[in-house]
């Protein structure tokens, strides 16, 4: 039974037995658990006065306290929730839009339609992401999680579109695609069944990379005070630390730990991606 299952899902087997994937996945699961259950481990609310300020990490305050006596652990786990949520939604939107544009442009490769889509993509590639986001965010007085995700994904999709387009270009002249074309299936179905389904593992890896990128963009916006207007976020915790001279005062637990969690998470996702790359490409697998 079990061996049959693995035979059917060979890729999954290679993916889950890859050392890099196991290592990365463990860290990613841990960070997500921290975001989900972290707020239950702490008796405080993120805005509460939790005890004496300027305290380094201890058993009472895992990540120490801020200068005005708030619990850094509480703020970090609540902030992590918000940042991850924005990152996941934005990453999903960016992947979907990027894939849609990439499939269409690739399928109609060489036509005027393709040229137009690619020109649009190239424009969004060169426009400086954060500067545009600052301008947009600055004029929106109220920003919720979804609005943030949309803002971030506006500038995140283009490179996916380019990558997916070139993959589609190489797939679209396969014989089975030609067969579907002769059978006059509609374009949506060809793209879905012949092209997208063959790129599933690739698209999955693209999603991971998108998630990395959108989280970095999100946390940068949050750090500049342009994150969600309500609640707390990872970037905001560190913005407070910098604004209150947390670095000058040597409060590393306030200014550095929240970002460390994010950097470790993104590194782990990179590991998963390289591991998956090896698992999905038989040529790399042998190495």
């Amino acid at each position, binding site marked *: 039974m079990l061996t049959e299952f693995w035979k059917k899902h060979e890729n999954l087997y290679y993916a889950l037995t890859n050392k890099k994937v196991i290592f990365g996945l463990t860290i990613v699961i841990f960070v997500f658990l921290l975001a989900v259950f972290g707020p239950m481990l702490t008796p405080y609310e993120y805005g509460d006065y939790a005890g004496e300020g300027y305290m380094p990490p201890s058993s009472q305050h895992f990540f120490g306290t801020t200068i005005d006596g708030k619990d850094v652990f509480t703020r970090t786990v609540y902030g992590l929730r918000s940042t991850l949520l924005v990152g996941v939604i934005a990453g999903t939107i960016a992947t979907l839009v990027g894939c849609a544009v990439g499939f269409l442009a690739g399928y109609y490769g060489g036509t005027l339609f393709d040229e137009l889509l690619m020109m649009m993509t190239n424009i969004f590639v060169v426009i400086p992401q954060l500067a545009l986001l600052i301008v947009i965010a600055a004029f929106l007085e109220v920003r919720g999680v979804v609005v943030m995700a949309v803002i971030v994904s506006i500038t995140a999709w283009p490179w996916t579109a380019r990558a997916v387009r070139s993959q589609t270009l190489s797939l679209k002249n396969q014989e089975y695609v030609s067969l579907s074309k002769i059978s006059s299936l509609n374009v949506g179905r060809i793209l879905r069944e012949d092209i997208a389904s063959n790129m599933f593992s690739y698209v999955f890896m693209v999603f991971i990379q998108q998630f990395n990128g959108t989280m970095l963009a999100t946390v940068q916006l949050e*750090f500049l005070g342009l994150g969600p207007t309500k609640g707390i976020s990872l970037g905001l915790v560190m913005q407070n630390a910098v604004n209150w001279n947390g670095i000058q005062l040597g409060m590393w637990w306030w200014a550095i730990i929240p970002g460390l969690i994010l950097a470790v998470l993104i590194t782990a996702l990179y590991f998963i991606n390289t591991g998956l790359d090896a698992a999905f490409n038989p040529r790399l697998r042998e190495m």
Partner: protein
Amino acid sequence: MGKYLRKKLIVYLITFVLAVTINFIIPRLMPGDPIQSLLSRFSGMEGGREILENQLTLLFNLNQPLWQQYLNFWKSVFTLDFGISIIQFPTPVLDIIKRAIVYDLSVLLPAIILSWIVGNKLGAYSGTDKKMDNATMPFFYFLASSPYFWMAGIVAFFFGVKLGWFPISGAYGSTSTPGFRLSFILDFIHHWFLPFFTMFLVQLGGWAIGMRNMIIYERSSNYSKYMSSLGASDGLIRQYGFRNGVLPQVTGLALRIGRIVGGAITVQVVFNYPGLGRMMLDAVQNQDYFLLQGIFLTIVTMVLVANFIVDIIYMFIDPRVRLSFTEEV
């Protein structure tokens, strides 16, 4: 000039038009009444009334039809008339930008160029040496995963606070005045180092990873295998792989400049470094929309020019493009 450059130029031109149009549209879509908020800000200032009228004529001209407003907006772009800053009243926005841009370029240019060169070299070594690869890749991934401002925090903490080697705020000491004197230049470099080093470190990871992957890919190609079967040394194979791998890295540079400039904005905030990024945030926080628009357009222009320069460099180092240019093929 060939199809290659013409196509790129069209994209850059459209991007520029788009950026100006965004500048034009966004204040008009803004919720609330921008004029009321401007009125209250200018009311206490001397001569504020006339300045305000000028500003409003320049930027809004709401009694004219929309296309006329749009044309006027373009006119002000071409005459580099971005209006007058509200924070540093009554300094023209252009003067503030001119002052700030020096700090951006002095940090960004060396950081981009050096990290590109060093990162590619290190990546090439990782790609050919399994032991070194296993030891260094996690580190490079970690660098590439770090948000710029967070790396700035770490660098400031260790080199500024723990070791006390470098100052962590401002572009020069409070006691020195700008000028071409040795003492000032030393002071400037002293303050310049940490923002530069931060930008250098984060980018380094990305370049190293990219080159390492390129080299591994090149090493599996037939010419590399043939070379090693002929007994060529690792160094020689690496050299040839490097020459092939460097081209996508140049393209990567063009793709990433926008993101690097974005990172610089946050780094300047951490180090309180008075470049465009720091000014941009000040403008946002103080609702100085004229300054914000001026800086946005400047940053977009900078990135477009940088992209164009990279395109030209690419043309000269890629033998295929170069040969088609001189029609020798």
